[in-house]
């Protein structure tokens, strides 16, 4: 008789593996831009999330009350296209039964995905959607884990003021929601700082030749350049600014220079700055989780690529969800949401805290950014933190070499 029941249990488990595993597994769904123009940053973010998942599972899973839950990811390629995102997030919720969601990469795709996550009442943690507008629409289940776009270039403006209070600034930026939000805010800050706005020009995200814009930058007499968008345009801009010897003393470009691949531009990368959500050299003392140094070393050991802020933001989305589940002692969405609402923590990534007001729920209000610059160290290009002073690992290269 005993053999019969044993065989029945094994047979049932084999026939319905999903049911057998469902009790101790959390499914997290997300789309990743495996292809398309957002590919570089989105895949780096996925690597960070996968790194977190593997560490959690290796440690036995997330502890919630008396249970431990292993983490399972379901991911789809959104091709960097907004239309795909809505379709795929609906699928993640309805067909794949995701318990929680991680956001796609970029503000545009996050805004699109948020419509679906709110519609189905699914918690979505976002590591790559900085534009604040999406979080100011009364959404209840959306949590922004990174600094909002309004503050992206704030450090670059402040650092520039210390070097040249009378700077002539050219804002050249991609015509996408994230870059527009960043520059709108930076423009105000630059005016408050007393700078002259020599040029403000947007370009289509698909732009491949920046020569006409760079000629306008030169004609404007600007000595500082702030702008960019995402990886392809930002890297092309840096290369052409160098080739056309635009005569700039200060260049801060969004997103692209944060990627280790940026060093492949050689001399064109030297001196270019990037507002960064995280750098391996930061010295935060975490309340839980790895230290910045431990994270950087472990991430490098796993991926063989130096972790950038997208990798770190992918990891932090997982770490904050894990913390909330552990605090809630349950994977019940209402309890986890309440725990996320209360989060006010410091991790390897820095401080994280979400706004709780009815009109800005989920907006990030705790995290701060640093300003990193590509500098030559022992004949090799490396990123150093040059602002703020408390986090500084090297003096800022200012003015830039004449080649720029």
């Amino acid at each position, binding site marked *: 008789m005993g053999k019969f029941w044993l065989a029945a249990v094994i047979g049932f488990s084999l026939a319905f593996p999903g049911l057998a595993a469902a009790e101790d597994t959390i499914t997290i769904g997300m789309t990743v831009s*495996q*292809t*398309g*123009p957002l*590919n*570089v940053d989105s*895949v780096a973010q996925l690597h960070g999330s996968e790194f977190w998942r593997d560490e959690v599972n290796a440690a036995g899973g997330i502890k919630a009350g008396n249970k431990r839950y292993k983490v399972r990811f379901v991911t789809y390629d959104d091709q*960097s296209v907004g239309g795909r995102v809505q379709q795929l997030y609906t699928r993640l919720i309805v067909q794949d039964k995701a318990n929680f969601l991680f956001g796609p990469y970029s503000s545009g795709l996050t805004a699109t995905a948020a419509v679906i996550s709110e519609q189905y009442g699914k918690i979505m943690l976002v590591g790559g959607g900085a534009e604040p507008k999406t979080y100011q629409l009364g959404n209840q289940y959306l949590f922004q884990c990174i600094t909002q776009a309004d503050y992206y270039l704030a450090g670059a403006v402040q650092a520039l003021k210390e070097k040249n209070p009378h700077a002539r600034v050219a804002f050249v930026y991609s*015509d996408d929601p994230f870059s527009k939000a960043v520059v709108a805010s930076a423009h105000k800050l630059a005016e408050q700082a007393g700078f002259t706005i020599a040029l403000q*020009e*947007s*370009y*289509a995200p*698909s*732009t*491949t*030749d920046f*020569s*006409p*814009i760079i*000629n*306008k930058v*030169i*004609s404007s007499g600007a000595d500082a350049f702030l702008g960019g968008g995402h*990886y*392809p345009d930002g*890297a*092309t801009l840096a*290369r*052409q600014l160098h*080739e*056309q*010897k635009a*005569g700039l003393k200060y260049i801060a470009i969004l997103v692209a220079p944060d990627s280790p*691949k940026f060093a*492949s*531009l*050689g001399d064109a990368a030297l001196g270019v700055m990037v507002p960064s959500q995280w750098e391996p050299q930061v010295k935060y003392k975490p309340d839980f989780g790895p230290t910045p140094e431990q994270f950087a070393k472990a991430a490098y050991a796993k991926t063989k690529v130096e972790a950038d802020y997208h990798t770190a933001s992918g990891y932090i989305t997982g770490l904050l969800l894990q913390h909330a589940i552990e605090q809630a002692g349950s994977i019940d969405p209402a309890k986890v949401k309440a725990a996320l609402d209360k989060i006010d923590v410091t991790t390897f990534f820095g401080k994280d805290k979400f706004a709780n007001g009815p009109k800005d729920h989920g907006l990030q209000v705790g995290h701060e950014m640093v300003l990193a610059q590509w500098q030559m160290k022992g004949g090799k290009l490396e990123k150093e933190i040059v602002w703020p002073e408390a986090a500084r690992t090297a003096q800022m290269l200012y003015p830039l070499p004449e080649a720029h």
Partner: protein
Amino acid sequence: MLGILASLLDGLLVGAVYGLAAMGITFIWGVMDVVNLTHGAMIVAGMFGVYLLVSAMGIPAYAALLPVLLAGFFAGVALYWIAIHRMIGRPPLMSLLATFAVNLVLIGLGTATWGTVLFNVSVSLPGFSLGRYTFPGTHIMAAVLTAVIAGVLYLFLYRTRAGKAVRAVAANREAAELVGIPTTRILALSCGLGVALAGVSGALISTLFPFTVLSGDAYQLKSFVVTVLGGMGNPTGALVAGIALGLFEGLATPFMPVSWTLVIEFVLFVLVLIAFPGGLISIGRRRPAVR
């Protein structure tokens, strides 16, 4: 004033490369009445050809142009036999869909192999300066090589037996066959030449700007505008129209936001299609130049 002059010169240099890119698509249309939608993918193939030859074999970027040109020719001949041959003489939509399908396969293979990461071919050539404005040596070299390639194409079409056969097939395929020209082979040769032009233009563009597997779309779109302006099936018109488009961009950008130039270009595209379906450059000509 110097700024406008610099912008115009820059437009001239880049416009020449637009023209070369468009010559491939217009050549195939002129001879075969086929809209080749693999054009963008072939431009990208040319870019990656240079990248691979430079990074794997360490040869200078400009030395990679000839192998890319030859590889493009053979790829074009293969494209003809795989996707176009059976569509010749059938409604244009069929060849359009066939080449679109091949384009999707090529882009899919490229994406699976390289992802959509940005690639960069570093070329260092001294440029020249005009006041505060610098013109990179790579832009000047690309324009010069475009002129050379266009000249060689002209000599081929007007001074060689094979070139004359290409023009005869373009003018009247049935008559060409009646006088003993092997039209199928000439069509395959023409497809090879058109794709070789796309590949070599991609190779030149790779020396100017970083690129991804998806970069071909932008140049294909630009090639359509240039082709319509220059006259469908008219390679010389394409080169002239490419330069004209570059000059227009150069002239317009100092006076308006750069994002508006694309809008104006497409307005021009529609207007020319309506008012001068044979293209601006072909006004007053009875047939396009390749015919």
